[in-house]
């Protein structure tokens, strides 16, 4: 449960005593919430491995399929290890407005009975693992923007720097009690931290690395959309853990988040493909799955704050606006974001973070006698303003941080493969392997 910072302090102690009455006086760890969060953690990991790997690999050309998958696995391995080494602690421990502390570096201090103030009914180790899966998928998402031309070594190194420069502070600001949380920014499951960050970083990467050779001249159509479809299916199911699990426990708020998420995906898929139907005379499978992901990404920050039917409304907006940003806007600006990480996640993340400020319904986020968050529709325009501030700050920091990270990596190993390797395909050039040969 993302708890608004105002609710901390004395309330924290109080709720420990009263929130879980059947277990009062015992371990604060609730087996049902633990089961639920374990399940959510597995689902979010499933989103990256193999979900995102399939989704992305299905949209590239045949010669780059394995290399695209390798990026997801590398992000998982590298980010997970660094998470426990230090990143978790910097993001979720300590009171700093800008950054946490190193009190749980190398997992020190996370015992069998430790709980985090951010998830008071499950082992802190589980909370940390759950949050790890978010950091993993955020880094893995970025890879899609630079697909087909970024070096594997460069991507692996980039994950290291970007995690600490961009992700960790950003997560701390919004979820770890940092200044954005103190300002009142709400972000249930990662509109700013995950989607804006991934989308904006993807855009910066696409610009700094440059367009694929042959962009807008050669046919870059996906080799195997059935793979991308399966990836979308796993992402969708996994998103139940992503958004539902962000309630940090089994209960109605988690259920509300899941239903809002599901409806947003449905609406996004229908709207995106519907626009295609009107424009091009037929709905593409790529459009159906892109729209679903747009809906899923966009509802994410709002999911635990809004009523389920509002998820459908947000999904409609997501389908339309992300369609526009991934086609017209991209064409106009001319950058080559291979798999539209910016158009879908970046734009969707901004939209969703703002919509959270519009649709937030107090009753959904109220808990233990504390009032929930109201948005514009409930007469609180201030929330929308705060959300916009969160968006702007996240984008600014992400642009700077990503550029710095990429610059360092460029100096160390170079960002882009040779044009011969790009021709040959990254599978053979980088990994010495090829599909179907």
């Amino acid at each position, binding site marked *: 449960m993302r708890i608004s910072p105002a609710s901390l302090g004395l309330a924290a102690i109080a709720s420990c005593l009263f929130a879980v009455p059947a277990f009062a006086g015992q371990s604060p760890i609730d087996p049902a919430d633990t089961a639920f969060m374990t399940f959510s953690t597995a689902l979010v990991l499933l989103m990256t491995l193999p979900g995102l790997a399939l989704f992305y690999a299905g949209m590239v050309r045949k010669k780059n399929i394995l290399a695209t998958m390798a990026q997801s696995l590398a992000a998982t391995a590298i980010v997970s290890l660094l998470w426990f080494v230090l990143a978790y602690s910097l993001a979720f421990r300590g009171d700093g407005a800008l950054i946490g502390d190193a009190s749980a570096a190398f997992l020190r201090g996370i015992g069998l009975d430790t709980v985090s103030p951010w998830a008071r009914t499950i082992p802190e180790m589980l909370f940390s693992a759950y949050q790890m899966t978010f950091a993993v998928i955020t880094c893995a998402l970025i890879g899609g923007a630079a697909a087909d031309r970024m070096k594997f070594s460069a991507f692996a190194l980039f994950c290291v720097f970007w995690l600490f420069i961009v992700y960790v502070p950003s997560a701390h600001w919004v979820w770890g009690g940092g200044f954005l949380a103190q300002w009142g920014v709400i972000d249930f499951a990662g509109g700013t931290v995950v989607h804006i960050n991934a989308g904006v970083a993807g855009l910066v990467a696409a610009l700094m690395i440059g367009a694929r050779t042959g962009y*807008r001249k050669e*046919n*870059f*159509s*996906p080799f195997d959309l059935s793979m991308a479809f399966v990836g979308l299916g796993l992402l969708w199911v996994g998103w139940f853990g992503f958004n539902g699990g962000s309630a940090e426990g089994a209960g109605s708020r988690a259920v509300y988040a899941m239903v809002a998420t599901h409806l947003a995906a449905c609406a996004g898929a229908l709207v995106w493909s519907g626009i*295609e139907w009107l424009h*091009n005379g037929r709905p*593409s499978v*790529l459009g159906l799955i*892109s729209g679903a992901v747009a809906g899923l990404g966009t509802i994410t920050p709002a999911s635990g704050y809004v009523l389920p039917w509002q998820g459908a409304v947000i999904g409609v907006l997501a389908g339309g606006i992300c369609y526009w940003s*991934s*086609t*017209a806007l*991209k*064409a106009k600006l001319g950058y080559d974001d291979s798999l*539209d990480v910016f*158009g879908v996640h970046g734009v969707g993340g901004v939209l969703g973070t703002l919509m959270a400020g519009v649709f937030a319904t107090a009753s959904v986020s109220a808990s233990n006698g504390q009032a929930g968050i109201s948005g514009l529709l409930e007469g609180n325009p201030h929330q929308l303003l705060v959300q916009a501030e969160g968006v702007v700050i996240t984008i600014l920091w992400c642009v700077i941080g990503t550029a710095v990270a990429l610059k360092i990596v460029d100096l160390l190993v170079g960002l882009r493969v040779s044009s011969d390797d790009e021709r040959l395909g990254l599978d053979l050039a980088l990994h010495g392997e090829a599909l179907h040969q």
Partner: protein
Amino acid sequence: MKLVTAIIKPFKLDDVRENLQQLHIDGMTVSEVKGYGRQKGHTEIYRGAEYVVSFLPKLRIEIVVKDEQVQAAIEAIRAATNTGQIGDGKIFVSPIERAWRIRTGETDNDAL
């Protein structure tokens, strides 16, 4: 001997095979090819960008026949594949100087 090469629409293969069988031409080699010609391809739209796919899937049928069978073979193929629509394909005839059946060592007409 002649090599008769036909570029046809993929779904016509079975009809061609049946027609040839009636002439007791019982050997052929088929490969998947892509063709470009008067028949236009289609446009694909991928995230807002249009690509023209100029090459269409076709089958190439190759039959080596005795000189005297060439005309009958061509007519059999045409009968099976002519739909009157653009893209029905082509038939080419070229010379074959010698032929072997690997298994038996038979040569030329006996090898077919």
